[in-house]
């Protein structure tokens, strides 16, 4: 009872309703152990998040001050007292043109996030209006065998996120379709394994930038004379090639190390090669293959930003780069927003793969 009382106090102190609900769940039965668990699972992470924002806030503030002082000092030296005073007043007034350019504070980032959402709403409305306006005309054009007019306005932040997801999934699928079959062949045949081993060892550590350049060289020549925008093609192929190695290695490993008991079963039942691969070898290596795919997806998402940036392919990478080049007042804050979005999406993708992985995996102990 004592523990639950404390908990009630803590939760009301933090203003967190859900703790009270949790407490109700345990009412009367809340043991010391439960409390410890709760502390570890909810309160500690929460506290560390708060601490993180606090440190960020303080850090941003002190960086802001350093930058501001330097700016005023410089104005004083270059243009004299009057200019310095004017600048001080300008900075204090919050006027956007003269703000020091440094690490944005959490609240600035939050503001930018909201302004990005507003921007998205405006663009969406604009797009909807455009579609409505051109609907009749487009119907006529299509009837006459001409191409429909499409919206070519600036993409919003949310559009960029979806473009990035498209690129990463295209790259991931490419990796899947290359690495899994190749891995199976390599795992099944020791000859192929020694033929490919040097290849894997040498190309696995190559950096995304170099992959991009390589793909660029090849795709540019292959698409010679075409006027289509090849940046998407180039970036998803580069993402796929960078990220496929984990899947390749894991698949080959899974296929070549199937449990001897299962192989014995296949032999005693006299399964044909095809049956053996599809009924025994592949199912038993699925857990390892999915571990590989999980790594592949997270690597794909990680290198995507750099590759989009290089390829000038629309998406979060390009967004970050353009904001950096742009150097507008809230550019830094927007970059941090993108950073969080990238992190959170990466985390969600990882979770997704983990769920699938748990779903396909089995415990060997289970069958024995």
């Amino acid at each position, binding site marked *: 009872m004592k523990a639950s009382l404390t908990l009630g106090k803590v939760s009301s102190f933090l203003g967190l309703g859900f703790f009270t609900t949790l407490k109700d769940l345990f009412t009367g039965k809340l043991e010391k152990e439960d409390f410890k668990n709760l502390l570890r699972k909810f309160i500690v992470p929460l506290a560390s998040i708060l601490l993180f924002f606090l440190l960020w806030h303080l850090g941003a503030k002190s960086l802001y001050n350093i930058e501001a002082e330097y700016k005023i000092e410089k104005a004083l030296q270059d243009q004299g007292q009057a200019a310095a005073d004017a600048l001080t007043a300008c900075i204090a007034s919050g006027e956007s043109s003269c703000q020091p350019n440094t690490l944005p504070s959490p609240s600035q980032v939050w503001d930018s996030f909201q302004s990005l959402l507003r921007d998205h709403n405006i663009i969406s409305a604009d797009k909807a209006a455009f579609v409505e306006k051109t609907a009749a005309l487009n119907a006529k054009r299509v009837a006459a065998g001409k191409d429909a007019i499409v919206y070519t306005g600036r993409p919003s932040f949310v559009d960029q996120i979806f473009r990035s997801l498209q690129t990463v999934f295209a790259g991931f699928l490419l990796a899947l379709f290359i690495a899994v079959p190749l891995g199976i062949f390599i795992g099944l045949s020791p000859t192929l394994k020694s033929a490919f081993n040097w290849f894997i060892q040498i190309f696995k550590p190559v950096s995304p930038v170099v992959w991009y350049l390589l793909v660029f060289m090849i795709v540019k020549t292959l698409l010679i004379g075409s006027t289509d925008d090849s940046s998407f093609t180039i970036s998803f192929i580069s993402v796929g090639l960078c990220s496929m190695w984990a899947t390749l290695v894991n698949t080959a490993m899974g296929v070549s190390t199937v449990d001897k*008991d*299962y192989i*014995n*079963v296949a*032999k*005693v*039942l*006299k*399964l044909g090669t095809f*049956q053996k691969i599809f*009924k*025994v070898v592949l*199912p*038993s290596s*699925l857990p390892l293959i999915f571990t590989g795919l999980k790594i592949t997806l997270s690597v794909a998402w990680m290198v995507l930003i750099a590759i989009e940036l290089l390829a000038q392919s629309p998406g979060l990478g390009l967004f970050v780069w353009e904001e950096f080049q742009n150097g507008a007042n809230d550019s830094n804050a927007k970059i941090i927003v993108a950073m969080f979005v990238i992190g959170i999406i990466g985390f969600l993708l990882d979770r997704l793969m983990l769920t699938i992985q748990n779903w396909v995996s*089995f*415990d*060997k102990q*289970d*069958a*024995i």
Partner: protein
Amino acid sequence: MAYLELNNIYKTYGQGDSETEVLSNINLKIEEGEFVAIVGFTGSGKTTLVNLINGLLKPTSGEVLFKGQPVSGTSHERGVIFQNYSLLPWLTVEQNVLMAVKEAFPKREKAVWKRKAAHYIDMVSLTPAINKLPKELSGGMRQRVAVARALSMKPDMIIMDEPLGALDALTRGNLQDQILNIWGKDKRTALLITNDVDEGIYMADRIIPLRPGPNATLGPEFKIDLDRPRDKTEMNDSESFKKTRNAIIEYLMDIGNERKSEAKEEFILPDLTPKDFVNQFR
């Protein structure tokens, strides 16, 4: 000519310095329709022997003849129940059995396969668990699936490697009867590996001990002259049962003691006094 013949079998594992001879000079003849049990200590090479017979392993020297032909690999004619069940964990009970049925009876209709699988699953009373995965089954249930899978291929000879090892006495007795039932019905040939002398006596026509390894060889055979079907309670009172049982156990205890005294001789401790490292570093 015997149904199954093992002539001068030697089996070594490893190469060079790590080479160990597990089985030495194994000679065994099993007639058609016979039920033979091999009892042996753990690690003596029973599974190795089984794998030589079913064709998963090749002898280092000597030959295995089945129906007069040298064994050169696995065959549907010899069904195996593995010691560790070896069910495929990603397949349900039915799928595990179906896989065997399909291989043993190719070019049949799906319905026929399903019926056959259902029949054998029912025989080991697992119909309620037909759609379960191995991980959802108890140890005894898994073992029964393994039995159903092996029998569903209708092998001419059933080779069982401690098939009932992990079961409690009650389930064990039940499955023993089921196996005997199937063996008796189609007059198949059976080889049972076990570590339970009573089980061997209850089920087999002959019991052959496998002496402890390395260099394990087969001991003298013990004939079990009890009428079938055997009854456990009646058997316990029978004089001939008692005599055979005592003889086998005595033999096993003797070789067990032999091994112990050998081990004693092998490990005479050298005459050393431990160094005093603690004081040395002071």
